[in-house]
C-alpha cells in the first residue's frame, strides 16, 4: 500500500463525506420547498436567493440553542444516542459506487471509498445498527413518549428489514454478486434491474420508506400522538443530529435505490460518450446521472410524504409481515424458476 493510494482514498472519502453532509443539509431545504409547493405556498425565501441559505441559518440556530438535558439517570446514553444515529447514517456511503473510475495523474481512481465484495450486506448491517441510535436516545430520555417512539421505531425497522432483505435476494440471484460496483457494471446500457425485478423494486421502495422512518411510516415520531417521538427530549444540535441523520439516511437510501435498480451511474449512450469524448468525461456525466436519479428519489420521498397519511401501527405490521414478506418470497421463487428454466425444461424432458 503506497502513500498515493492512501491520499487518493482520503480524498475520495472526504469528498463523499462532504457531499453526504451537503446533500443532507440541502434535503432539509428541499423538503421545505417541496412541501410548500405541494401546498400552494412558496416556502423559505428570505435567507439568500430562494432561501438557499436557510440550512445554514437553521444550523446556526440549532448550535446557538440551549442544550437541555432531562433529569435522566442515563446522561451518557443520552449524549451518545445522536452520535450513533449520525455515525451509522454516514458510514453507509462508504461502499456506494459514485461513478466508474477517473483517469487522473496517470492513475485509475475508483470513485468509491471501498469496493468490498459484500457491499449490500455491509449496508444492511450498518442500517440495522442505526436503530440503536434511536433506541438509546429514546430510552435515555426518561420520557414515555420517547420510549414509545423508540420502541415503535425499533420494531418497525426490524420487521421491515426482513422484507427488505428478502426483496433483495431475488435481485442477488440474478446478479450473482453482492458488490455494489459489479451490480452497477452489470446494468450498463439500459439493462436496469427495475425492468427485470419490478416487484422486488416495489417492495424495496416501500421498505426503504419504513427504514428511513418517513411518512407514511413515520410512526416513530408522529407528532400528533407522541409529540416528537424518540427526540422529544432533545434540543439544540443533538436534536439537529437526529434530524440530520434522518436526512442523510434518506440520501443514502435514495442512492442505494438508484444503484440497485436504476443502473447507478449508467446512462443511455455512455459507451458512445466514452468512445468519442473520452472515458473521464463519460464517467463525470455518469456521476451526474447518478445524482439526477437519486435526487429524483429524494423528491419522490418528499412527494409521498405530503400525499399519503400515516399508517396505523397494526396496519404497518400487517403490511410488513403478512403482505411484503410473502410477496418477496413468491418473487424469489418465481425468479428462481425463471433462472433455472433451462434445467427445469430439460428435467421435464420438453
Amino acid at each position, binding site marked *: 500500500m503506497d502513500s498515493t493510494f492512501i491520499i487518493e482514498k482520503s480524498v475520495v472519502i472526504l469528498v463523499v463525506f462532504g457531499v453526504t453532509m451537503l446533500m443532507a443539509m440541502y434535503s432539509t431545504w428541499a423538503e421545505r420547498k*417541496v412541501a410548500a*409547493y*405541494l*401546498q*400552494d*405556498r*412558496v416556502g423559505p*425565501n428570505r435567507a439568500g436567493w430562494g432561501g438557499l441559505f436557510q440550512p445554514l441559518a437553521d444550523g446556526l440556530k440549532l448550535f446557538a440553542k440551549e442544550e437541555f438535558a432531562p433529569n435522566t439517570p442515563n446522561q451518557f446514553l443520552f449524549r451518545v444516542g445522536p452520535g450513533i444515529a449520525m455515525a451509522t447514517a454516514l458510514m453507509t456511503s462508504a461502499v456506494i459506487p459514485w461513478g466508474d473510475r477517473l483517469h487522473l495523474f496517470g492513475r485509475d481512481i475508483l470513485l468509491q471509498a471501498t469496493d468490498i465484495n459484500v457491499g449490500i450486506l455491509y449496508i444492511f448491517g450498518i442500517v440495522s445498527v442505526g436503530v440503536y441510535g434511536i433506541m438509546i436516545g429514546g430510552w435515555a430520555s426518561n420520557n414515555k413518549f420517547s420510549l414509545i417512539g423508540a420502541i415503535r421505531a425499533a420494531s418497525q425497522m426490524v420487521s421491515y428489514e426482513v422484507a427488505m432483505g428478502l426483496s433483495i435476494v431475488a435481485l442477488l440471484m440474478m446478479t450473482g454478486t453482492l458488490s455494489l460496483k459489479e451490480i452497477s457494471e452489470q446494468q450498463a446500457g439500459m439493462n436496469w434491474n427495475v425492468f427485470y425485478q419490478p416487484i422486488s423494486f416495489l417492495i424495496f421502495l416501500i421498505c426503504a420508506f419504513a427504514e428511513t422512518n418517513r411518512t407514511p411510516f413515520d410512526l416513530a415520531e408522529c407528532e400528533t400522538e407522541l409529540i416528537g417521538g424518540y427526540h422529544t427530549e432533545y434540543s439544540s444540535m443533538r436534536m439537529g443530529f437526529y434530524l440530520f441523520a434522518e436526512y442523510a439516511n434518506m440520501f443514502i437510501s435514495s442512492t442505494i435505490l438508484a444503484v440497485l435498480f436504476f443502473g447507478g451511474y449508467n446512462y443511455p449512450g455512455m459507451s458512445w460518450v466514452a468512445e468519442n469524448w473520452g472515458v473521464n468525461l463519460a464517467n463525470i456525466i455518469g456521476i451526474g446521472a447518478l445524482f439526477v436519479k437519486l435526487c429524483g428519489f429524494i423528491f419522490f420521498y418528499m*412527494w*409521498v410524504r*405530503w*400525499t*399519503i397519511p400515516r399508517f396505523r401501527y397494526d396496519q404497518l405490521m400487517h403490511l410488513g409481515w403478512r403482505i411484503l414478506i410473502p410477496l418477496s418470497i413468491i418473487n424469489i421463487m418465481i425468479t428462481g424458476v425463471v433462472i433455472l428454466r433451462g434445467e427445469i425444461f430439460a428435467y421435464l424432458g420438453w
Partner: protein
Amino acid sequence: MSIQEISLSGRKKLVSNKEMTFLEKMYLIAILKGLGITIKHFFRKKATINYPEQVREFSPVYRGRHMLKRDEQGRENCTACGLCALSCPAEAITMKAAERKADEKHLYREEKYASIYEINMLRCIFCGLCEEACPKDAIYLTISKELVPANYDREDFIFGKDKLVMPLEMAIKNTQLKNSN
C-alpha cells in the same frame, strides 16, 4: 325525487360499503391517484403574497389607520366627549379631557379637548364605529396602506396623539386645496 338524492352542490356521492376488489385493496392505484393530485398542486400558481414587497390589493371602501382631524384653521376637532370610546366594541380607545386655556384657541376648536388620546391597535378591529359615533367629525379611518407596523413591544402598539393627529402640513394643504376649489 327523494330528499336523499338531491344534491345542491352537484358533487354528492352516496357512501357505499361494498367489499373492495383486489386492485382496490392493493391501494397502489389510489396512491398513484393521490400522487397525481399533489403533483398538480406543485405546478399551480402559489397563493402566497410576499408581504413587504407585495401588497394585497385593497378595496376602495377600505378602513385603514385612524386619524384625528384638524379643521381648516388647523385646530383639532376632538372635544373629548368620549362617544368614540363608548361606541368602540373592542374598547380600544381611552382619552383624558382637559380645558382649553385662553392662549390655546388656535390649537383646539372646542373649549374642551383631549390632552391624551390613545388607541390600542392590538385591540382595534377597524370596524369604524368610532368614526360613525363622533359628533365633531374628529376621527376618521383613513385609507392608509399600512395598518399597524410590526413591533417588538406591546407598548408600541398603543398609538397616542403623536401618531393619530393629522400632521399640520396636511391640514395646511387641505385648506389650500379647499380655497382653490
